[in-house]
């Protein structure tokens, strides 16, 4: 008996190992093709846009021979395929070259601006999850009711209204009219020279240094773009929460729990939501990745000095090294968060493990 059991175990673990190898391979393939796709698209966008990078470097008034010289220096006179090979080589070695605009190595720039984006996306996701999950639960519990309709409308607006429009509206209302929030940017100039960031996450830095006035100022800067991003992730999170909860509430164990006489609150928040929480983690993680990526417009509207604004500026200035670097970083983070949420999902939900 004991022997047999071990054999089955071994067989099972062997199958698990090959399944793991297979999924690892598939995953690697996905990563490689995603990267390649990214590279091809960024390269050709960079070459197709009718902006001359040489002109971007020398400015509007340069004499023709200077433009010509810079074009040669940039290798723009080489055949397209050679330029592409150089581009791929750069990307693979993680050396994205120097930014034309800032004159720093692109990686240095990214290290400087990326924390701002992460901070903003984190605040956005926290706000989105904080309001989105209860709203979704409410909509599921009160399915078909007035409250459900309201939640759906809130979500619908979040989905369909362009972010720049809502952002400008919010600025006019909360900044210009009500004066509740601070001018676009990350921190007031007053503090720009009295405050030395350590981690690059200003809220955290200010709190650690116990500079509460700075903390408050940063808060007043981040709250509006954060709330805006939060609203967009709320729309997604509440909808998904609603559908997960509906699924759970129709399960037999809920019926059983009700039969046992457990209170409705207990059933909803401790039984159903706990089970719905597993897929929700994936949803929240994906929406986090989405915010990192989708911060381009928000950052532009709110002059938020993060990666989104960096890429926008670089694109406008035909600074292709910077665009490539920024895009690859965002792509990598997106892929990484996907993997992470996948792994978490597997860990948290025993059913996915046994399959």
């Amino acid at each position, binding site marked *: 008996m004991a022997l047999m059991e071990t054999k089955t175990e071994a067989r099972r673990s062997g199958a698990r190992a090959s399944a793991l190898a297979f999924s690892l391979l598939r995953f690697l393939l996905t990563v490689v093709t995603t990267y390649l796709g990214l590279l091809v698209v960024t390269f050709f966008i960079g070459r197709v846009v009718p902006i*001359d990078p040489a002109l971007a470097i020398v400015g*509007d008034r340069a004499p023709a021979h200077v433009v010509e010289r810079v074009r040669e220096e940039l290798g723009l006179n080489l055949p397209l395929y050679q330029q592409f090979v150089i581009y791929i080589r750069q990307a693979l070695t993680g050396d994205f070259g120097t930014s034309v605009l800032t004159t720093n190595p692109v990686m240095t720039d990214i290290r400087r601006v990326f924390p701002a984006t992460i901070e903003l996306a984190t605040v956005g996701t926290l706000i989105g999850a904080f309001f989105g999950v209860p709203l979704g639960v409410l909509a599921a519990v009160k399915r078909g009711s007035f409250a459900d309709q309201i939640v759906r409308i809130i979500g619908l607006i979040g989905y369909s209204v362009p972010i720049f429009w809502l952002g400008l509206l919010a600025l006019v209302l909360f900044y210009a009219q009500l004066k509740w929030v601070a001018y676009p940017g990350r921190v007031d*100039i007053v*503090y720009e020279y009295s405050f030395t960031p350590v981690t690059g996450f200003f809220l955290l830095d200010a709190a650690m240094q116990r500079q509460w006035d700075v903390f408050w100022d940063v808060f007043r800067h981040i709250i509006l773009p954060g709330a805006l991003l939060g609203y967009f992730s709320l729309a997604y999170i509440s909808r998904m929460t609603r559908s997960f909860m509906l699924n759970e509430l129709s399960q037999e164990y809920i019926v059983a729990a009700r039969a046992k006489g457990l209170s409705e609150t207990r059933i909803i928040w401790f039984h159903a939501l706990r089970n719905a929480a597993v897929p929700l983690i994936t949803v929240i993680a994906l929406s986090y990745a989405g915010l990192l990526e989708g911060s381009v417009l928000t950052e532009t509207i709110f002059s938020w000095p993060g990666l989104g604004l960096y890429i926008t500026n670089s694109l*406008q200035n035909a600074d292709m090294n910077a665009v490539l670097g920024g895009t690859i970083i965002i792509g990598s983070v997106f892929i990484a968060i996907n993997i992470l949420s996948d792994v978490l999902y597997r860990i948290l939900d025993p059913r996915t493990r046994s399959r």
Partner: protein
Amino acid sequence: MMNSLNRRMRLMTTSAAMALLLAAAPQAFAATPADTLVEGFAIDDIITLDPGEAFELSTAEVTANTYSKLVNLDMNDTSKVVGELADSWTISDDGLTYTFKLKSGLKFASGNPITAEDVAFSFERAVKLDKSPAFLLTQFGLTGDNVAEKAKAADESTFVLTVDKAYAPSFVLNVLTSTVASIVDKKVVLEHAKAVTPSDEYKYDTDFGNEYLKTGFAGSGPFKIREWRANEVVVLERNDNFFGEKPKLARVIYRHMKESAGQRLALENGDIDVARNLEPGDVDAVTKKDGIATTSAPKGTLYYFSLNQKNEKLAKPEVIEAFKYLVDYDAIGETLIKGIGTIHQTFLPTGQLGALEDKPYKLDVAKAKELLAKAGLADGFTVTMDVRNTQPVTGIAENVQQTLAQAGIKLEIIPGDGKQTLTKYRARQHDIYIGQWGSDYFDPNSNAETFTFNPDNSDEGKNKTLAWRNAWDPKDLTVQTQAALLEKDSAKRAAIYEGLQKEVLASGPFVMLFQQIEVAGYSSKLKGFKLGPSFDTNLVYTISKD
């Protein structure tokens, strides 16, 4: 049921608490500090702060406030040039040698003394780097090979410049007021110079500190450059070693803001002290606010549209003339450029030597139709215009589209980013281009050269002036433009430019629209704020705050 209601209540109270927290925020806004000036300014054109390379409008303002030159324009009378680092100068009888005596006791921001050696080095590096503005110096015959000899220090306080022709002295001196002639600290620059491998294009083994000066600083002006972050901010700090009157402010911050509406909001809320890119509607709005003042100054920048002579229809003289009658100058003046420009139809901006104020053209559709009929185009035709998607050119293009339609000309507007439209314009691939031109230096030659000089109209032509870009070959005018440079008698020189302007007004493919007036809205807490006569004379050292 009751419980979930409680839950809902709790959720609502939390949101209410959040809202209250925000509402209770201290209303006292962090106004800009008393020793700091904050200007909202579109500074996205800055690509480098190296005075040997920079050639953009906002950069010119930054370098003007941070670097000194041998000579500068007299701010009260722009027809005069006064000494800045130079105490005095003499010009040899043959008109070829300029000898400058430096003031004594001058210091760079670094503390190093300013000597004629630094002046010579500044000229040498600008010429050898050969970046965008280098032509301003090389047009005097300076080359990488001869610059050490032609621009040299005779002794510690004497700098000698030798030019290749007996140019009008006012021309030479005016060119020396441009930012490329800024004096850099040789010692600091050499400390930061980077070794490079010489090539066919660039035969020197050093970058003359070009990379360092892109964001760094080696000057002697009233302010030092502390920081530039592209499309974000430029921060200047008081230079305590400045030889002139010390600035009253400790710090000046140019904050990048592109939109007029955003600048207006920030100005009204006290987040910035000065708004520099207000459009007519916003100018109107801020003038009505308490605590905000506005000021304006005419600039040397002209707006125009031009007809590419490669297009056969646009090359007909009658068609060129018809276009000049198909612009509603009055309407444009009263709406689109109200407060930010005045109608101007000649290529020399008001204020420069010889500038003509003639305005012979008015909207006259009947006359235009007559001219088109004469050209055999009575039924009109279709043509495109490349338009940068910024105001006021977009509005003007749309206005012109309507008036052209009245004469049967169908104008297709091709909107684009500045760099897109410019790339096309430089390659002579446009039909019509609408844009602006600012003088490179405060001398009529700057504009005369670009609008009337085209010695080689082939696609390979080396002088890619605006005349060339529009494939216009104004043979006699090219010769006259060159002659004007050697005319030492100012009155005679002015007469040549007047003639050139009349020719372009009558037959040139340029429809001049208006001359820019720069407007700024500013907090009335500021004292001594004013705009200068050119884009590189908006000086901030005179400003103080209540």
